[in-house]
């Protein structure tokens, strides 16, 4: 009984970690697909962030980001290069969250409404959303990415690490 308990706890943690990996992968895949299916809409939304004046650069970002997300989502679902993918997603999510927050603050000031009442389509792939909800969602995704980055979610992975440690 006493000996079984740590094993069971580890099994439960492992199960949740795998579910977290799949949840994160499926969410990123879904958001990416939504954008990839409507690239012009995504381009128009990206344009509102004033990231660049250069059409080629703006087009490139709008064209590549959705498919890049799909790629990362698939990697996580399959369990390939999990920590590298988690790091990439963490960096992307953190940048996007800052951009969305910045735009929300601008809208809050322009509309003179409470921060959480700000609602807009951030181009994240889920349509119009209240900013507080969006930030919470992103925070959750960041926590999941961080968890995977820490080396969790190895079960049911095709190839957890691309770069194997050297044999001692």
């Amino acid at each position, binding site marked *: 009984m006493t000996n079984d308990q740590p094993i069971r706890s580890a099994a439960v943690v492992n199960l949740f970690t795998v579910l977290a990996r799949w949840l994160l992968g499926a969410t990123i895949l879904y958001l990416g697909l939504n954008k*990839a*299916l*409507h*690239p*012009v*809409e995504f*381009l*128009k939304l990206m*344009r*509102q962030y*004033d990231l*660049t*004046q*250069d*059409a*080629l650069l*703006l*087009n*490139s970002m*709008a*064209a*590549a*980001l*959705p*498919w*890049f997300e*799909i*790629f*990362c989502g698939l*990697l996580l679902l399959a369990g390939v*290069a999990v*920590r*590298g*993918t988690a*790091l*990439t997603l963490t*960096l992307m999510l953190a940048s996007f969250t800052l951009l969305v927050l910045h735009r929300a603050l*601008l*809208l809050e000031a*322009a*509309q003179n409404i409470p921060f959480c009442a700000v609602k*807009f389509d951030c181009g994240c792939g889920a349509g119009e959303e209240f900013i507080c909800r969006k930030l919470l969602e992103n925070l959750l995704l960041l926590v999941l990415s961080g968890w995977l*980055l820490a080396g969790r979610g190895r079960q049911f992975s095709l190839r957890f*690490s*691309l*770069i194997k*440690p050297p044999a001692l």
Partner: protein
Amino acid sequence: MTNRLYVAGRILLEAALVAVVGAAFAFAANQVSPRGLALARNYFPTGTNDAVRMPPIAVASVGVPGTNVASVGVPGTNVASVGIPGTNVAPPAAVQLPASPIKAKEVPLIDGPRAIQLFHDSHLIPGAIIFIDARDEGHYREGHVPGAYEFDPYHPETYFPVVMPACRAAEQIVIYCNGGDCDDSKTAALLLEQVGIPDQKLFIYGGGITEWTSTHQPVETGAQNSGSLKIAIQ
């Protein structure tokens, strides 16, 4: 410590690999996708970053007595308003221009009553006054001004064969999109101008389909001249 650094280095290298392969996959997928973006194309000829940045900018329907025409700039120029030649309209006293700077040629903006009048006039001499819907196909099929031509300015090549002859034959062309902060109608107007449609013919209905339906005007669903009409009840 050394081991941790080694693990961190491995993760970084793996992330770099994911980024490089992912980017290659992404650009290839965009290239192959029938909906993919053309990277070299300027989708916003009115100015890459001249999108309406802040929400609802009040344009046009300002209700200046005796005036039913305002003017909106294609982003990029600082334009005062003008009337439409031959329409017995004085320049409006106060028109709120878009917040973004205005560069290119201005396109006259018409308000709801004027759009309705032109819609009714369009039945008198078919083809002399035409409406162009500058939204995407999905929105167009959900409901458009009856008889309006579909012209998604982000896929112009698809629509030019049908729209161009109609534009050449028309005397007045009313272009609209959703209204409010939508500037697809301006993009469409500029595209038509670029392919040789005289700018004197072009007018933008600033209120767009939102205002059109809110004033209980009929909309046609499905394809152009499908005959399937409805009136929005709000």
